[in-house]
């Protein structure tokens, strides 16, 4: 048991690092807990390790922005604890395992900056070895310099094209790109183009990547309407349907992607209010402009509060840090106002591109709620779309009851990989809105821990209490 800190931050991506720096600037004591061994989050993974010119050339310039955030964070005096898995979070503090040791931490404010995850891709066969997310492929490239030859890239969204583009620059052969962005998204997206062009950099970068991929001679199939995977013990064939009809391609690696969604597991476990975002098709915690949730003690910054990308995440972290300083009485109203205003304006500008991207890469309903009865929705417990449909037919009213009906959401991932699909599938089948259907109730521990871990925590707490008693006597 350590003493009470002003601000506990969970996650060392752009939001968490930036929040730590700004909170320290205003004199707050800060502990930053991160599951990974080095800072950067997913977007700036490996930012603290020595630069490698060949890898830099493949990954591109955006890393420089991350380096600036990292540099300031590294010098800010926050108590940074990598390799820390937080498995409980509550008003009274949080519990974690840090490099094999159980610990509790008391904090006046907790800032969740756990970022995004890729939207589930619940197609038939998506559980086969050989199918992984585009983000996973990029992590292997970024941090381990590992690549797979002749992979098929499937889905849509900036990250999919970015990873394909990085493979292209690395000289790794790509078997094909199956682009699922539907043509009918163009019109609604076009309506948001004027706003998006206030941030021309993003659009230019996207166009540059897409043009390079088209010119490269890689096979690109567009307007894909459905996808499935087959193979015995690992992937050997990808099947899809487009205007040319049913098609197949043999491959041993498929990288799938349908955009990113907030990783809501931790915020959901606190019971703070969440809303279904119809524009981004995801759950997100309900936040004020500064990242405050419906719990006084809990704040959220970065993509975990709604998808905005790395730059907005860094700005959100800074804004939340100011709000924490204000709420803890370390910043007067005038200073808070004058310091937060330019950050809020910068974030508004950066987010201008978002409605365009959200509409252009809005996944077709069939990629969110499987059309195939045999498609697995819950990977852990292998619950299929047909199983969910039967349960709803038998009167199962929502995600929590679905657990008893089917065990969906009760495996080790605790619903992370099926929660959104389950919400949307039940909503579709029962003709209700996702908000009304709700999400799984997420319970502690939110990461797998051993009984020994929990006992270790109790022992530490008891020792602490004994010390306190001894001191009182």
């Amino acid at each position, binding site marked *: 048991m350590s003493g009470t800190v002003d601000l506990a931050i969970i996650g060392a991506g752009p939001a968490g690092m930036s929040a730590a720096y700004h909170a320290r600037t205003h004199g707050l004591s800060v502990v930053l807990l991160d*599951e*990974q*061994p*080095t800072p950067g989050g*997913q977007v700036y993974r*490996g930012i603290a390790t020595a630069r490698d010119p*060949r890898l830099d050339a493949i990954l591109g310039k955006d890393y420089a922005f991350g380096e600036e955030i990292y540099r300031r964070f590294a010098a800010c005096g926050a108590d940074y604890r990598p*390799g820390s*898995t937080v498995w409980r979070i509550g008003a009274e503090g949080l519990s974690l395992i840090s490099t*094999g040791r159980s610990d509790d931490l008391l904090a006046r404010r907790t800032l969740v900056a756990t970022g995004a*995850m*890729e939207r589930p891709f619940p197609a038939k066969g998506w*559980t*086969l*070895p*050989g*199918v*992984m*997310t585009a*983000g*996973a492929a990029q*992590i*292997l*490239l970024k*941090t*381990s*310099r*590992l*690549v*797979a*030859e002749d992979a098929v890239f499937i889905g849509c969204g900036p990250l999919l094209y970015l990873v394909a583009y990085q493979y292209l620059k*690395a000289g*790794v052969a790509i078997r094909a790109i199956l682009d699922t962005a539907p043509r009918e998204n163009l019109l609604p997206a076009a309506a948001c183009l004027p706003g998006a062009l206030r941030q021309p950099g993003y659009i230019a970068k996207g166009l540059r990547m897409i043009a390079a991929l088209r010119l490269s001679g890689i096979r690109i199939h567009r307007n894909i309407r459905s996808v499935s995977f087959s193979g015995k*013990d*690992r992937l050997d064939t990808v099947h899809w349907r487009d205007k040319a009809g049913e098609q197949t391609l043999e491959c*041993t*690696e498929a990288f799938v992607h349908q955009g990113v969604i907030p*990783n809501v*597991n931790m915020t959901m476990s606190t019971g703070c209010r969440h809303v279904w975002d119809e524009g981004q098709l995801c759950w997100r915690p309900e936040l004020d402009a500064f990242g405050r949730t419906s719990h006084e003690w809990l704040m959220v910054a970065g993509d975990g509060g709604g998808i905005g990308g790395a730059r907005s995440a860094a700005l959100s972290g800074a804004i939340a840090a100011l709000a924490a300083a204000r709420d803890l009485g370390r910043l007067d109203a005038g200073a808070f106002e004058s310091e937060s205003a330019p950050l809020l304006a910068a974030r508004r500008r950066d987010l201008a591109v978002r409605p365009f991207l959200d509409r252009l890469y809005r996944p077709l309903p069939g990629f969110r709620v499987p059309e195939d009865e045999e498609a697995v929705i819950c*990977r*852990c*417990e*292998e619950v299929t779309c047909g199983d969910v449909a039967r349960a709803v037919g038998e009167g199962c009213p929502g995600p929590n009851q679905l657990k008893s009906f089917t*065990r969906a959401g009760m*495996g*080790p*991932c605790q619903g*992370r*990989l099926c929660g959104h699909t389950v919400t949307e599938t039940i909503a579709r089948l029962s003709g209700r809105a996702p908000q009304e259907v709700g999400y799984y109730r997420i319970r502690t521990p939110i990461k*797998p821990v*051993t*009984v*020994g*871990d929990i006992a270790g925590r109790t022992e530490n707490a008891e020792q602490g209490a004994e010390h306190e008693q001894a001191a009182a006597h």
Partner: protein
Amino acid sequence: MFRPLDVTGDGAVSIEVEGQSRLVPMAPNLAAALLSAGFSPFRTTPAGAAPRQPYCMMGVCFDCLVEIDGVPNRQACLESLREGMRVRRQRGAADIGEKGGTR
């Protein structure tokens, strides 16, 4: 099959995989090392004994679960590579008998 982008000279680490001593390439985490060594599957599911390999590489999917030094349900993508670590494929439900109770 994943392969290194180029020869880096990062070296190799000796670990025990399924009871056999193996040299795996140095990597920032166990999952990456096992993938590049061609280890497959990482586990089989408790529900249908289906083979699995890492899906997300960032700690959310839990398909990279393996047994490490006798402790089951460890996320290989979040475990640092350590010389001599004992890795076993996790078949079906985790064995949380006497092996799993301690760290």
